[in-house]
């Protein structure tokens, strides 16, 4: 199957232009400053400026031409890149020769959501084929594609698969419009509201009305509805309510739009090469998570959505680069749906007879005491020397921390069974991490000075693509857990973890 040639992401042109501007503008700026320093300011500037503009323009045109001429083709047997404005060059790399695909994000491309995709052939350094820049999703897709080819899984080209769906695909989880919209309602973001509120205050001179001027709201309300005119305080209250309500509506609307754009027509399917996820309204992303690369699961929920029984499931998979390791498998679903998906990944939700244990009371007490030691004197100092109600800030912070520590002592739990480790933690958005005992990489017991004195420890596990840490364990328990987990780890070699089936062979 032949797929058509593609260009790199259009934004890469923007990245190149910005980089070039920096490279050009700084030396020219320095040069002009030194030249202009001695003598005729006006004359030199008049010569200089058009020249600078011309150089920049030529470079931008060149960069644009180069961008239009660089294409890559993901073929059935190889990846081909054709480039060059005047002299053309074409390079082909067969899949068998690609050792790995590395994804790299420098600062500037990262700001644009782009990455450099390098096909490592073992040729070393500069001879490797690289594409600058592709979108993050495209980079991940290419890597997944190459890895699958190398694993010898016979699959259709991803574009092809999109058109003619193989009947074998078994849908594990899907979200219709109704579910996506419900999800959107819960994605109400306070941060967005704060930003919009802040912006409104910043740019209120550009607005046709004054958002924070309650009197004006009063008049506006009073204008069409004469019945409000006489009721001064009532109209004032109505004004405040309307201001808050409009912000709330904005917050909900942003949540809805963002969620719909991202999650529209979400479907998670089981295919021969792993879990396949597609979602998105305008930009549709297509991702394959090979089942044997699943390292751990993470179940999340929210402060409010928990009471309605909504949870989410993330898959932490083996991917060494940034960004690509944490995949939403079920962004918004019921526990039964999550259980079904988790079962497919060969992980299991904790059984009812799991022995849950809390962190040591001392650990929580120490944290609370530490917070008090800092925040209480601050509150007192501010109350004495500060002005107005500012002392409320540290006092609230203290109350918040104390409540959090109490809550987390009550609800943060850990458990260990024959195959898996569980850690439940968090306050506003409680989450449950599930890791397989055999798929961990290292184990560390860490103790600070206070922890050593008080006899507790943190247990940190190395996990490909994520972190797994349990705080406030009694030292003895931490040792036992580490020994138990290390025994499980020692039973399978890392290379066996990557095999498709049966981890213990030999």
């Amino acid at each position: 199957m032949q797929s058509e040639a593609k260009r790199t992401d259009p934004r890469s042109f923007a990245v190149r232009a910005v980089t070039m501007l920096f490279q050009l503008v700084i030396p020219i700026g320095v040069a002009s400053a030194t030249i202009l320093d001695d003598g005729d300011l006006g004359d030199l500037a008049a010569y200089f400026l058009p020249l600078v503009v011309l150089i920049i323009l030529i470079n931008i045109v060149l960069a644009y031409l180069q961008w239009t001429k660089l294409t890559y083709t993901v073929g059935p047997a190889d990846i081909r890149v054709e480039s060059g404005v005047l002299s053309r060059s074409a390079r082909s790399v067969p899949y068998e020769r690609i050792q790995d695909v590395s994804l790299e994000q420098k600062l500037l491309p990262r700001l644009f959501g782009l990455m450099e995709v390098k096909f490592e052939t073992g040729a070393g350094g500069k001879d490797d084929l690289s594409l600058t820049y592709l979108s993050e999703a495209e980079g991940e897709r290419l890597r997944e594609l190459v890895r699958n080819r190398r694993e010898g899984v016979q699959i259709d080209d991803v574009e092809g698969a999109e058109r003619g769906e193989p009947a074998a695909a078994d849908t594990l989880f899907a979200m219709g419009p109704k579910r996506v919209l419900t999800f959107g309602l819960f994605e109400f973001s306070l941060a967005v509201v704060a930003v919009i509120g802040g912006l409104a205050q910043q740019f209120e001179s550009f607005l046709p009305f004054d958002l924070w001027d309650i009197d004006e709201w009063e008049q506006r309300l009073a204008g069409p509805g004469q019945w409000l005119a006489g009721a001064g305080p009532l109209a004032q209250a109505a004004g405040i309510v309307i201001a808050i309500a409009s912000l709330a509506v904005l917050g909900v609307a942003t949540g809805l739009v963002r969620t719909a754009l991202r999650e529209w027509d979400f479907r998670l399917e089981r295919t021969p090469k792993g879990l396949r996820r597609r979602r998105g309204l305008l930009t549709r992303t297509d991702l394959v998570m090979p089942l044997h690369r699943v390292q751990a699961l993470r179940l999340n929920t929210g402060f409010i959505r928990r009471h309605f029984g909504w949870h989410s499931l993330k898959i932490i998979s083996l991917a060494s680069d940034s960004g690509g390791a944490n995949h939403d498998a079920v962004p918004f679903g019921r526990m039964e749906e999550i259980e079904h998906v988790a079962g497919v990944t060969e992980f299991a939700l904790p059984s009812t007879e799991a022995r849950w244990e809390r962190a040591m009371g001392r650990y929580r007490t120490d944290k609370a005491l530490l917070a008090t030691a800092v925040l209480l004197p601050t509150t007192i100092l501010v109350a004495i020397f500060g002005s107005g109600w500012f002392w409320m800030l540290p006092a609230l912070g203290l109350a918040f921390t104390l409540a959090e520590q109490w809550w987390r002592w009550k609800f943060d739990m850990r458990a260990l069974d024959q195959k898996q480790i569980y850690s439940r933690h968090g306050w506003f958005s409680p989450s449950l991490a599930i890791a397989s005992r055999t798929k961990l990489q290292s184990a560390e017991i860490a103790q600070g000075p206070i922890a050593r004195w008080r006899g507790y420890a943190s247990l940190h596990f190395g996990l490909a693509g994520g972190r797994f840490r349990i705080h406030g364990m009694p030292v003895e328990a931490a040792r036992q857990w580490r020994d138990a987990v290390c025994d499980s780890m020692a039973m399978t070699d890392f290379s066996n973890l990557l095999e498709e089936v049966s981890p213990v062979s030999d």
Partner: protein
Amino acid sequence: MDATHELTQLDPRYKTMMRVVAAIFAAVLLIAATIAEIAIPGWTGVVWVPVAIVIAYLVIYLPMRRYATRGYSLAEERLRVVRGVLFHSDTVVPFGRVQHIDVDQGPLERGFGLATLTVHTAGSHNASVSLPGLAHEDALAMREDIRAAIRRDTQ
């Protein structure tokens, strides 16, 4: 420490090396203190005395403590690295999880015949666990041990 596996101490030369590193830093500190002392009229010792105490701590006491708290073990095909004076850490990496192994020597380490062994894992946390202060030949031997263990497992 759990008593099942005794930790191996690092090479004694490592203590000397840490002292040399601290001494370089101390020399800079001493020069600064001397300048300050000259600037302050009268030889009062207000700068020298505290600096001398800090230097004694850095050069004499701290390397001793650091050396005493560090150790490693290779028992049961697991690399165990223990370190930390104030913040204690005790890390275990089973040989089966080692991706690749480095043996590095800095200029000072070369002078003392020491080396740093670093094992890399696929984990995001503890992606590399390094063990400084080994005799160079010990580090090489450990690398061979770990490599042999990995090869045996993958066959």
